[in-house]
């Protein structure tokens, strides 16, 4: 792949670099900056994200057994992913490489329930308004409330799919928030027969609704291919976990990397050796690192993770209905990898169907109700846990001293893997939509549409500041702000006349 375009204006002289003032927010939010030349052409476009600052330091020095519960406080949206990734890493630190079947299946049930509910929330709550109403529709309609009004069946299914996933989490983790079901070495509870019966009774309905969701997104692509297959395209390498036979697996596996052209670059990389595969680069204009493949270097080695990567990186999906839909999806690419940003939604719904099928199958397994829950091994003191979280590959890496305290913690979260890919999507929108134009609310939303497709976890903490205020600024070659608009936490679109609040 070519080196990233529009990341840094050339020549940089005369253009002002802007950055987020770190005290202005207490949690992740997005800020896009665009720099123009004297002809009002975009020369630079950047998405700035703040995420997880300090969390690794927060973990160091804590007893290892606290970590699976603590890390859930990273995020109110994907706590289970962190919970399980931490447990998988600590399994290895304790020398446990194989869990008893009951423990492995219970964790898998919890995880697939988490992916199901997270994907359902993202599609039905965050993205379907854009897709069903259009990017330039009335902003007050472009939310879940608007969907509920105009498409009550879709909204209802979204709510109940989400609730179903949350009930799986409650039943396996013990409670809805900060559950303790998974522990280093296994699980601490079985599924109750009552919960099994309750969840099983609804499983067929969830599969049916998930099928409907896949077909809904597929229809959008086939009805408007110019938009859905063309909006914010950015070719990228793909990374995800796969099973030894190349099948998709969201809970466990080895790393596979496929090039943007579809060739296998790395196959069956041991999760404990992830640092042989990827490295992270720090760039001065962002608080979030930029991972890349060591074999290709920072300029050409960036990649994408998450549903769009997983569905195309695997050889098959090991559940029948989702595999049929994967084949339809792959055929849509006509022999090439699909790199359209909006195809994330289609891939995401295929995964919803897959998770619903896996959950349904697991719920018939008697191992959920009885059997050993803890494994045993020879303590090694270090471990890596990799899981396919809803947004993509999630890596937890810990070292544990003899006194049981964590001495090293490294987290590479899904959104970080996608940092460059999201920036590329923003640049594609900038090239296609912003060159020399005044910023309008509709154009601003197009940037958000591109960012939202990746389902970035920008809201990993407080809800009170947790809306995603998005600011876009146009800065000319002399550093003068030509245009500066923002969407407030309440969703109001405002053109700002005051001075920029960024450090220069």
């Amino acid at each position: 792949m070519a080196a990233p375009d529009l990341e840094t204006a050339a020549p940089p002289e005369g253009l002002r670099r802007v950055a987020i003032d770190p005290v202005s927010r207490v949690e992740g939010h997005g800020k896009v900056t665009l720099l123009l030349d004297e002809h009002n052409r975009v020369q630079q476009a950047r998405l700035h994200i703040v995420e997880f600052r300090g969390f690794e330091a927060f973990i160091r020095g804590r007893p290892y057994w606290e970590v699976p519960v603590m890390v859930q406080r990273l995020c109110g949206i994907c706590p289970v992913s962190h919970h399980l990734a931490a447990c998988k890493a600590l399994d290895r630190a304790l020398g446990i490489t194989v869990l008893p079947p009951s423990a492995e299946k219970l964790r898998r049930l919890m995880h697939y329930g988490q992916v199901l509910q997270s994907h359902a929330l993202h599609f039905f709550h965050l993205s379907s308004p854009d897709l069903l109403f259009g990017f330039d529709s009335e902003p007050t309609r472009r939310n879940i409330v608007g969907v509920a009004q105009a498409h009550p069946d879709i909204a209802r299914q979204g709510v109940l799919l989400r609730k179903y996933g949350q009930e799986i989490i409650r039943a396996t983790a013990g409670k809805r928030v900060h559950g303790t079901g998974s522990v280093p070495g296994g699980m601490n509870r079985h599924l109750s027969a009552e919960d099994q019966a309750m969840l099983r009774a609804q499983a067929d309905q969830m599969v049916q609704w998930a099928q409907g969701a896949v077909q809904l997104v597929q229809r959008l692509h086939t009805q408007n291919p110019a938009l859905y297959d063309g909006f914010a395209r950015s070719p990228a390498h793909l990374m995800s976990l796969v099973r030894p036979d190349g099948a998709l697996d969201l809970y466990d596996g080895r790393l596979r990397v496929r090039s943007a052209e579809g060739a296998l670059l790395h196959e069956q990389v041991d999760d404990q050796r992830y640092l042989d595969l990827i490295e992270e680069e720090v760039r001065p204009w962002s608080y979030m690192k930029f991972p890349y493949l060591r074999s290709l270097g920072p300029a050409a080695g960036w990649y994408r993770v998450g549903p769009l990567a997983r569905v195309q990186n695997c050889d098959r999906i090991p559940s029948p209905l989702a595999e049929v839909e994967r084949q339809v999806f792959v055929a849509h690419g006509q022999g090439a990898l699909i790199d359209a940003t909006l195809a994330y939604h289609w891939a995401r719904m295929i995964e919803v169907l897959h998770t619903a099928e896996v959950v349904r199958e697991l719920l018939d397994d008697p191992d959920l109700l009885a059997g050993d829950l803890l494994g045993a091994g020879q303590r090694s003191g270090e471990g890596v846990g990799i899981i396919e979280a809803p947004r993509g590959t999630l890596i937890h890496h810990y070292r544990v001293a003899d006194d049981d305290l964590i001495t090293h913690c490294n987290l590479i979260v899904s959104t970080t893997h996608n940092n460059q890919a999201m920036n590329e999507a923003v640049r594609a929108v900038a090239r296609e939509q912003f060159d020399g134009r005044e910023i309008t609310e509709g154009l601003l939303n197009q940037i958000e549409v591109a960012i939202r497709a990746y389902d970035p976890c920008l809201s990993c903490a407080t809800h009170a500041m947790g809306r995603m205020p998005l600011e876009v600024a146009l800065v000319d070659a002399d550093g003068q702000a030509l245009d500066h608009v923002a969407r407030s936490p309440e969703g109001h679109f405002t053109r700002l006349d005051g001075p920029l609040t960024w450090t220069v």
Partner: protein
Amino acid sequence: MDGLTAPPPARPPAPCLLLAWGNRSRGDDALAPLLLDRIQRWLMQQPASQHCAVQCLEDQQLQVEHVLDLQGRRAVLLIDAVVGLSAPFSTMALTPCRDSSFTSHALSPQALLQVYQDVLGGVPPPCLLLGLRADQFGLDHPPTPQALADLDLAEAWLRTWVQQNAAVEAAEPGAVTQ
């Protein structure tokens, strides 16, 4: 399941719901969960008729599926940390409203009630928002001393609210105070 309603719970829900949300690891964002902890401890010391009339739920963020938790309630109190309050706490009766809170994983309380109306049909139960004055949200920071002092006042108010609503519920099902 017909898809029109959630599966019926094993038993009828408690008539009064306290739903608090926040991140316990982020400074003042922990206020609502902490208040819920206090009230739950206090409820355990109250007569059974009172603590059985109240269900306490905690989450990290308000989400669309919480509409299902509102079903079958007589009175709902939503509790959240709020930035920029001039008083230690605030109360506000909520009405359904279509707003633009769609750029995050969270949902505004008013939008939640609108989703209830649109998705489940009918009028949502009476809902009150108890806002707790909040100022800082640093990771791994405790709530500020000022926030904790304010919380004492909010707790006193909340005890009264629970007593009134639980008592009213026991005496006259369906009647609630706001």
